């Protein structure tokens, strides 16, 4: 079995710089880009298959030179090698461009499964897994909260607002996973030490035969015209009660009805 885990390098949204910059080494881990959190679940899922059935797990990352640290982080979980599409031309790619490049990187690779996070914490489009499947002409099993692989078939529980669907597809297939699928491990020190000696292939766009005009900012189908910061939280509404609980409950019920929550 050969499994591909596409990963993304994203800004650290959980960083709290003030309390992390406290030691005498240059330690910017509060603000440095990190491995996309959802990719920890896909890596964990791939590692579980590897440990159970035996598999070679390969990281796939499209990103700048600096993405090497993110790739090494992914490898430290115990993965076997990486493909790093390292080309300045991919900067600013939208979901289609990204999927196009990832698909091109896999065109000549043999694999049984692609397992990836259902979204990246920076862009949050949730589009890339399905688009990648489309480019590769493979079935896509998205939003998996449980994955079973047996006898050449992948079966997932697909998370739905009101429960889950059970969906299956023959291998090879693309699976995107959600948080509920597992609790990712922490890398072991042995894994951290081994990560630097794992093989990393570094094709550029030309080597993959991708037309540079179709990807990157220039090739993007979508364009961000304007960015507005999240409006500040509005002051809450205070309701008073006479101690009986009735007035308060009534006010809360009215509020919820007004918000269409009841």
């Amino acid at each position, binding site marked *: 079995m050969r499994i591909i885990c596409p990963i993304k390098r994203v800004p650290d949204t959980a960083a709290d710089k*003030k*309390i992390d910059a*406290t*030691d*005498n*080494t240059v*330690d910017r*881990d509060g603000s440095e880009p990190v491995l996309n959190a959802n990719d920890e679940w896909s890596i964990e899922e791939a590692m579980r298959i590897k440990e159970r059935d035996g598999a070679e797990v390969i990281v796939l990352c499209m990103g700048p030179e600096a993405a090497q640290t993110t790739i*090494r*982080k992914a490898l*430290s979980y115990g993965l076997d090698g990486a493909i790093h599409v390292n080309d300045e031309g991919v900067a600013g790619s939208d979901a289609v461009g990204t999927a196009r490049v990832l698909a091109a990187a896999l065109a000549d690779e043999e694999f049984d499964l692609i397992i990836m996070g259902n979204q990246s914490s920076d862009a949050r489009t949730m589009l890339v897994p399905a688009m990648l499947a489309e480019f590769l002409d493979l079935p896509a099993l998205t939003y998996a909260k449980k994955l079973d692989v047996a006898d050449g078939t992948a079966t997932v529980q697909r998370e739905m607002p009101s429960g889950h669907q059970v969906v299956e597809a023959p291998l090879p297939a693309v699976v995107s996973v959600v948080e509920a699928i597992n609790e990712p*491990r*922490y*890398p*072991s*020190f*042995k*894994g*951290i*030490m081994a990560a*630097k000696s794992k093989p990393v292939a570094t094709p550029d766009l030309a080597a993959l035969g991708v037309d540079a005009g179709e990807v990157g900012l220039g090739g993007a189908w979508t364009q961000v015209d304007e960015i507005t910061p999240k409006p500040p939280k509005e002051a809450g509404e205070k309701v008073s009660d006479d101690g009986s609980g009735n007035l308060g409950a009534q006010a809360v019920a009215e509020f919820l009805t007004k918000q269409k929550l009841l």
Partner: protein
Amino acid sequence: MAISFELTEEQAELRRVVRQFARDKVAPRAREMNANREFPLDLVRQMGEMGLFGLPFPTEYGGSGGTYLDLCLAIEELGRVDQSLGITLEAAVGLGAMPIWKFGTEEQKLQLLPALARGEKLAGFGLTEPGGGSDAGGLRTTAERDGDHWVINGTKQFITNAGTDMSDFVTITAVTSQQPRAVTNFVVPTGTPGYTVGGGYDKVGWHASDTRDLYFDDCRVPVANQLGETGRGFANFLSILDEGRIAISALATGSIQGCVDECVRYAHEREAFGKPIGSYQAIAFKIADMESAAELARNQYWYAAWLMAEGKPFKRAASVAKLYSSEAAVTAAREACQIFGGYGFTTEYPVGRFYQDAKILEIGEGTSEVQRMLIARDLGLPPARVG
């Protein structure tokens, strides 16, 4: 530059990973497990899977193939959030596994180390006795040879990691000859007839760490359980403590840094007389002093660890690290509680726990007085006439 404070990429990553583990898994549990006096088996096992218990040992013995400094980095990060888990790791590796690694035969190492290094089992280090810890050479526990066995009698006091569900054995010092006096080390497996693990203590701090009183009553162990050379037992155990002081210093550094973390946050949030308390110099300066202590403590334990790794004499540097950082940890925790006001005297915030936990740092693995004695002796000052 001959001087460098740069960690390797792998060390920096180890520290990041342990920091994340401490923040995400340990911190949310710390208050409860300390209140319940609970030894958190699941967290300890997870630390085992991360390879923390094998950090300074080679992979052939189940270790992670790192260094003693790597171990210290992990202890500091755990200690920054919970001192009990920090001491559990420190004692398990520095005191429990290290005597096997340093003094065991190849056979003993292969048999005993891997389970410890993988964090599946724990070992205790039985030096202190009810009659004395500072004067550990005055031990009363005896071992008498009887055919293919040694018969052990005596009591050990305050032994960390000896009574958990994962505790596999304890190594001890015992007098094997009175004239001339000889002290030798033995491995005593949990469950050996005649070896009883007591109920522990009502401690002031380190509530989630396991500390036990041990009783040996005609306890027979095979001669193969002797560890190291006959008559070298006391010197060997003291050399374990020399290194252990660096790790305790890392634990103390974590405590100070944990106080800084908490106080910086609180000094922003808490307001008095209409302003955040951090804007008052009286509070800001306390935190600045705390940060200074954390950095000095860290620099000194790094220095001692570097000397040790370079094969240079490191004992004095280790004593300085242990003495300074443990006393600074008590001061930092006391001031942190002050900054938190009334809340600092509750268990609602971690600083109260840091205060309870800090005191033992000045006592365990050689009291502050013992460290000063060692430093003074190293300077050539005449020893006190004892006895």
